[in-house]
């Protein structure tokens, strides 16, 4: 299923989240099961199915990485659920160093300073990668699509780091 089509949005990475939200509410109203309560069994079933599709689509389009994965899948490059290991030594070494930095926070004399440092590095890298992802996807050709897939893989590590950092921040409070 093409989520962009379902929401009448152009199949591209850049997306107006307000517009997405408005379309979501419209579609939800249109396919709300209550509106089809008087219809045939088949109608009701279709409305329930469509409501589920709308929720899935909204969830995927809202999040940049899922949106990028969906866009690639529509272009024939499926990378969700892949179990392949990522093997770029320099990138992984940097990940390891950031993980080590995160591990130091709990014993640090000034944990807030380390949290800020880690947060800054993660945000900076994430921003740069998201920019690269945007231009790779905009190029819309197989070579750039493969580059985009690699950028998504890298971004997943940074989203994970951000999550780990948030967990650490919670225990610091």
């Amino acid at each position, binding site marked *: 299923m093409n989520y962009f089509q379902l929401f009448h949005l152009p199949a591209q990475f850049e997306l107006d989240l307000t517009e997405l939200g408005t379309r979501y509410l419209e579609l939800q109203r249109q396919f709300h099961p209550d509106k089809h309560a008087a219809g045939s069994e088949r109608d009701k079933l279709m409305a329930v199915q469509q409501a589920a599709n709308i929720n899935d689509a909204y969830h995927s389009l809202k999040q940049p990485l899922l949106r990028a994965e969906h866009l690639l899948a529509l272009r024939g490059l499926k990378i969700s659920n892949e*179990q392949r290991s990522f093997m770029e*030594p320099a990138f992984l070494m940097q990940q390891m160093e950031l993980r080590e930095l995160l591990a130091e926070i709990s014993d640090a004399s000034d944990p807030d300073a380390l949290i800020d440092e880690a947060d800054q590095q993660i945000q900076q890298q994430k921003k740069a990668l998201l920019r690269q992802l945007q231009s790779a996807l905009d190029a819309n050709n197989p070579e750039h699509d493969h580059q985009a897939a690699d950028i998504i893989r*890298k971004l997943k*590590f940074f989203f*994970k780091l951000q999550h780990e950092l948030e967990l650490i921040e919670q225990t610091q409070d």
Partner: protein
Amino acid sequence: MAYSTKVIDHYENPRNVGSFAKDDPSIATGMVGAPACGDVMKLQLKINAEGIIEDAKFKTYGCGSAIASSSLVTEWVKGKSIDEAALIKNTDIAQELALPPVKIHCSILAEDAIKAAIADYKQRHGN
């Protein structure tokens, strides 16, 4: 999800955690990661002139299964030649640790870490 007793054992008492000096010519370093869960694994092998793995160390940031898989692998590779170590399959690791299907990728990561370390060694020793 319940971890097997072997996973818990390796997770609570991980074998061979740590690092060797990276630039020591007898040390091979393999770095791998799993984008799906953000796990990062570093496996280092100390290889002697006869191509036998004398020692191994690992550092893994990830779930219990990923830590257990890498810990187990450091035990398995010791005393093996690099060619023998290259034959270790993720299915052996998964079976030994009784990993559930959703954690198979952790054993794949550990197998790939051995391969990456051996590739690093071969690249540095020119064959």
